[in-house]
């Protein structure tokens, strides 16, 4: 029996487009525009002014509260302006626009004198590391759980179609990842870690297994979406069920993305803060797909030009096709959580493929929901504006993973209804 969770869907993987392209440096443009909000929580407070000289690794935004993260310059050069711009997820925040001098001079954090739980936690916080699978939750917060934890889970499932950056990272940097996992274990004070990866990436599993110490298990998971969802992953790897509204630490687990572990390695061993990441460029509507080391603050426009975006592009997506954000234009910039940018043509997207009709009550949404909810009833509760009913149907547990909309034969916008349900419940305060 393959390790897995119950229900879920099998979208077409489309990973072949980029999986064999080794990570190379993305040519950083003349100017970068770095958002001060690249994470969940308070935006970082501006720490430079127009005209300041910066290096790659200079602090430009300081964490504004505990749940926030430092932001660093990704290039060396001069701060040109501070602009309020839209981010890829649609909210507005200050962006630090930096003129790139092309020298890439680096500023590193001082090396750590000792490797203790405290010193590593502080380093992770200093280095501005956030969840790099796309959720961008500040990692240092996760490293300070309120309840005792006995296992670290490393999420390398990469269950979203198209995305291959974590796969490449595992193939190319297994030792560094293992070192990072070791630091995370020290920080948490746990003696066991489990890496979970889908079985469509056997070579990457082998690559990690070859260098894994005894107390780090690398497990093969069934290829099924959303295998990398936190609660589903914990269940698949440990059999533990995270109660509704609780955190993974309540069942003794902390989950971090494999790229986050790599970032921790860089911060602890090299003193390099988080300003660069592996990112996948993919989709049929671009001529130069692949996996690249991309510095924060590269505009989507620059990515599109480099990727050779074709005129047939119908959708530009930040993230994967199941949970990513469709972009209206190419003005936003990449950040710590930008795991991929996809250029998709009409054949690849489902918009307009299925006629939208009334719900036929087939219950496909319910039978595929990884949280075992009943989306069709939640949708009806939203239409009746019945917040109490929506809450009673556990709408707040929804992951917004998209399985319900994916399978709906009537093409109902169910995920959107789930979001409306959550908003309704919050507004009515039931």
């Amino acid at each position: 029996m393959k390790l897995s969770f119950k229900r879920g869907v099998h979208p077409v993987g489309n990973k072949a487009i980029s999986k064999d392209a080794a990570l190379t440096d993305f040519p950083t443009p003349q100017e970068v525009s770095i958002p001060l909000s690249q994470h969940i929580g308070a935006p970082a407070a501006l720490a430079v002014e127009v005209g300041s000289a910066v290096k790659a690794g200079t602090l430009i935004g300081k964490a504004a509260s505990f749940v926030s993260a430092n932001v660093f310059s990704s290039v060396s050069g001069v701060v040109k302006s501070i602009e309020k711009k839209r981010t890829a997820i649609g909210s507005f925040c200050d962006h630090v626009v930096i003129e790139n001098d092309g020298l890439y001079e680096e500023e590193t954090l001082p090396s750590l004198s000792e490797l203790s739980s405290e010193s590593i936690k502080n380093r992770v916080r200093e280095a501005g590391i956030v969840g790099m699978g796309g959720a961008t939750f500040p990692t240092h917060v996760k490293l300070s759980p309120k309840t005792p934890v006995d296992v670290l889970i490393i999420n390398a499932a990469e269950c979203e179609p198209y995305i291959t950056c974590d796969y490449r990272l595992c193939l190319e940097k297994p030792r560094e990842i293992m070192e990072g996992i070791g630091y995370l274990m020290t920080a948490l004070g746990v003696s066991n870690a489990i890496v979970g990866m889908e079985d469509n990436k056997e070579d990457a599993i082998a690559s990690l297994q070859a260098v894994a110490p005894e107390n780090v298990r690398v497990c093969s998971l069934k290829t099924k979406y959303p295998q990398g969802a936190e609660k589903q992953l914990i269940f698949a790897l440990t059999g533990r069920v995270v109660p509704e509204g609780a955190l993974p630490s309540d069942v003794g687990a902390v989950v971090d993305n494999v790229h986050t572990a790599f970032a921790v390695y860089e911060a602890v061993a090299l003193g390099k803060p988080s300003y660069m990441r592996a990112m996948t460029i993919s989709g049929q509507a671009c001529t130069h797909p692949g996996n690249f080391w991309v510095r924060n603050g590269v505009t989507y426009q620059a990515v599109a030009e480099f990727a050779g975006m074709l005129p047939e592009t119908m959708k530009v997506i930040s993230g994967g096709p199941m949970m990513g954000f469709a972009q209206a234009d190419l003005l936003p910039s990449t950040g710590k959580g930008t795991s991929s940018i996809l250029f998709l043509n009409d054949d690849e997207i489902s918009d307009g493929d299925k006629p939208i009709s009334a719900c036929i009550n087939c219950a496909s949404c319910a039978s595929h929901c990884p949280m075992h909810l009943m989306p069709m009833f939640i949708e009806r509760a939203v239409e009746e504006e019945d917040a109490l009913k929506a809450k009673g149907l556990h709408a707040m547990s929804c992951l917004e993973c998209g399985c319900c909309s994916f399978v709906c034969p009537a093409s109902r916008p169910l995920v959107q209804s789930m979001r409306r349900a959550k908003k309704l419940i919050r507004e009515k305060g039931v």
Partner: protein
Amino acid sequence: MGKFIVSSSPHVANKRTVSGIMLEVLIALCPAVFVSVYVFGFYALFLEILSVGAAVGAECLFNLIMKKEQTYKDCSAMVTGLLLALNLPVSVPFYVPIIGSAFAIIFVKMLFGGIGKNFANPAIAGRIFLLLAWASFMTSFVEPINWDRGGAFKYFACILEGQNGLKDVAAITTATPLSALRSSVQYAKDLPIWKMFLGYIGGSLGETSALAVLIGGAYLIVRRIIDWRIPLTFIGTVALFALIYGAAKGNAGAFILPSLFGGGLFLGAFFMATDYATTPNSKWGLVVFAFGCGLITSLIRFFGNYPEGVSFAILLMNICTPLIDKAIHPRPFGAVKAKKGGAK
């Protein structure tokens, strides 16, 4: 720079559509249609086409009059029409399927809001309507035709001869095995089980051959159009009660196979009790629903006034569906059980 589409995630979807599902059901009904023509001649096909046409026509007409968008493209009316036809004996006059389909579509489906909103399976309600309106037509079952002697067109000939057609037909009326099933163990034991399974026996167009329905039903299960829990529980429950009835009569096994292969059980369990709109939305809800169908079917068959109880059973359970859906929900992943009397 061209404009990009901006819409909510997910940006991909599987290929299944409403019309695709309905076409799969139509494909799955092909073996039953084939057997109906083989057993009863081309008049069976004529009735099926009339019924499908009337169902689609009624839906179009309704939408036209009510100034609503046309919905025939979802193919669900075709399924309703064909299922209704398969529930008719071959000896009915040509206007019976037309009236039945129109009733099913307009009164059971469209007036309640169209696809997905109907409270009962339209084909079942249509059949029951016809059963009450034309009891004699609906319970006259004829023997399979003889292809060698021009039998393929026998019932066409009856129709062409005018209203006397039915009398001719009635002359060869045969009892369905079910109508006398409960009478005795000996009767049950003498039934031609193989003939019943294959379908070369009197009965409704689509009900005669359990095998043909089974092939179509298996197709739907493999294609994941219907949930296997419904037919399994429904048929299993009927078998269980046949066993109990038989045991009470002194021969536990005698009634099981005739109960399964006689009447409309298979057609009902695979095609009628699996209508999405009128069945519960949870897995356990489906089991309860199907058990109820099996229970009521058995009670009517063994103790009621009608020889056949499948359609009444499904109709009654259709009506119970909202209650089942209210009572049974899947437990959300990680849901915390409501605390009663403190933690354990």
